[in-house]
């Protein structure tokens, strides 16, 4: 399926939902469902960019990039479109950055059924407003991703998990230079270090870390987003991403009420992009 066929499938009228592999919530029930084009269009390793259909499996993309000694900072599993639309990073976010920084260009199908391009193919680009950032995490409510150009990154020479006991995660955290991940469960800490093998070994030794397996199993009750400075006071069964503020907790979580003026603004944006709320109807962002 090419983009034109995808746009025709989305059409311009009536409720419609989109699904990849259903690993991040799946389609809206009871609504006509479409699927984005899949497949890697090209890899430009020397430009550190890759183009693929939004329906491409993340794992397929990661494997293809590995052949070029590169990777992409998307969480494993599901499709590229799903990972971008949900916008949640994985435990490497501290070092690899948020998912929103990965998307350089997107072509999506609007609520009117038109193909729209956002962004451009280069990492540095301030040509017009940053619609790509708005699309990441928008759960398809502003448009359905068709194909994308993503930023890649070189694979490290070494990538190794370490661990230690830690009552205060910041003791270790502040001793490390640009760690990829630091996780903490209240008593034990895990760190993912990458780079030159000797640098990795020296960093680990200086911070009192020993080689260990990682990451630990992450509790699945709730995924919380908190100010990173507050994680030291967490209780219960959790794993916190130190320096980031994502907390994987065994208990459910009610997100504190946010700025309702920001919510009003978000509604104004959806009114502009999909006034009839036909894209993923009923889905809240």
């Amino acid at each position: 399926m090419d983009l034109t066929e995808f746009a025709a499938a989305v059409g311009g009228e009536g409720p419609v939902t989109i699904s990849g592999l259903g690993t991040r919530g799946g389609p809206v029930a009871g609504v006509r469902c479409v699927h984005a084009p899949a497949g890697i269009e090209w890899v430009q390793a020397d430009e550190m960019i890759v183009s693929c259909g939004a329906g491409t499996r993340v794992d397929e993309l990661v494997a293809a990039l590995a052949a070029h000694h590169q990777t992409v900072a998307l969480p494993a599993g599901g499709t590229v479109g799903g990972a971008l639309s949900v916008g949640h990073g994985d435990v490497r976010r501290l070092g690899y950055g948020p998912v929103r920084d990965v998307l350089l260009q997107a072509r999506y199908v609007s609520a009117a059924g038109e193909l729209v391009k956002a962004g451009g193919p280069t990492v540095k680009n301030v040509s017009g407003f940053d619609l790509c950032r708005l699309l990441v995490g928008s759960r398809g409510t502003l448009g359905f991703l068709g194909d994308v150009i993503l930023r890649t990154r070189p694979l490290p020479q070494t990538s190794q998990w370490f661990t230690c006991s830690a009552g205060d995660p910041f003791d270790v955290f502040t001793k490390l230079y640009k760690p990829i991940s630091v996780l903490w469960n209240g008593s034990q800490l895990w760190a993912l270090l990458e780079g030159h093998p000797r640098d990795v070994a020296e960093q680990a030794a200086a911070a009192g870390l020993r080689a260990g397996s990682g990451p630990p199993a992450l509790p699945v009750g709730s995924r919380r987003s908190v100010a990173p400075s507050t994680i030291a006071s967490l209780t219960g069964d959790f794993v916190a991403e130190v320096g980031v503020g994502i907390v994987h907790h065994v208990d459910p979580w009610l997100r504190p009420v946010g700025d309702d003026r920001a919510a009003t603004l978000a509604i104004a944006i959806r009114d502009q992009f999909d006034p009839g709320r036909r894209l993923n109807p009923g889905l809240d962002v």
Partner: protein
Amino acid sequence: MNAALVADLTAALSADRVRTGTTELGLYGRDASNFPGSAGVVCFPLTTAEVQAAVVAAVRHGVPFVARGSGTGLAGGATPLDHALVIALTKMDAVLSVDPVNRFAWVEPGVLNLDLTRQVTKYGLHFAPDPSSQQSCSIGGNVANNSGGPHCLSDGVTASHVLAMEVVLSDGSVVVLGGDEPEPAGLDLRGAFVGSEGMFGIATKVCVRLTQNAPAVRTMLMDFETVEAGAQTVSAIIAAGMVPAALEMMDQLCVQAVEAYIHAGLPVDAAAVLLVEVAGLPHGLEADVARIVEIGMAHGAGTVRIAQDEAERALLWKGRKTAFGAIARIKPNYYLHDTVVPRRMLPEVLRQVYAICRRHDLLVMNVFHAGDGNLHPLLVFDKREPGVMERVHAAGEEIVRASVAAGGVLSGEHGIGIEKRDFMPLMFGPADLAAQAAMRAAFDPSGLANPFKVLPSPGACGDVQHVPAGAWV
């Protein structure tokens, strides 16, 4: 001058911070671009409440308002049109708080880029975006333009370093976008706002991410007999899986101008010079330096000069960052362009840039962020020469077109502003532009926040100063 607006502003701020004198209006009637504008009133708020009052007053009187930091923008983004109200944020310049452990800071928009870095140096941190104007440009301006700089190659542009903002919208509301938490609820309004060139609202507080200073840094200079060899070296370094902290290039004319200015012993006979900086932990860094030198030599590098100490490193960077000042030795005026092309296209597009400038009988110097493919052709001229401006503009347009045709983009870090507004259709079709206009309509339904920038108005005749206020769609 709009007397009723001035009266409202004076009541909300204070008389000494609302200016209508000819000198002030002249000073604030333009930014660092070549586009003249016309300020109606200039005000200098001290607080978010005063910014809010100024915006409310402007909207009440139907007057466009333009937020302005240090005015270093090069695309006319802060140039007021139609006797707009200029809201100068230079007096809101406090660093409000710093969290050195989790590495972020809340700052007011008038804080200067380099001042922020200076204030957090004691924690071993810095603010990563480092435009060449970093001594004078403000964080608010960086947010508005999504500014870059040499070290964005490895660290990313401003959008990657802004966690949250407090903004004043044209309806007078004060809204916090984003947060110091990693996944704030709802749409990424923060991301949408960064780079909106003052057309979505005014940032009054900014939460920026701070970056750890590298334990070790190596800065080296390599010279080449051809520009192509230098450009190919850039591509080869990235293709080898390295992302240096910075990868900058200067051509011969530029090196000669800089050398005459700073006397750093730069190779003035070389066709091109590459400034490469590698930062990180010591073993990886030394390995990268060795590989980069090897790649440079394989591409015909004449000499490789590695800075021996911090003073020499600072001198090499001074050469790069003062290049624009140094050109005054050649001609009194310059026009600095900013486009991005795929790295692999650098040799070809540079060839075209030289050919275009030869055809228009203009001198060109190239000094640019080669690692990002971010070209900065600098057309140098004397504007007293009859007809020279027409040649400068014609050459500039051809350079922009050549860059986009090579698979590049209109602007890497200067923004669209007025300068490239009418080039936007080179990159975007009507539906693409409509989507961007929809973003603006959601943030600023009044259409009074810095109008007539970025998006080409349907049917625009190009004479923006005659577009009636509020005509935005």
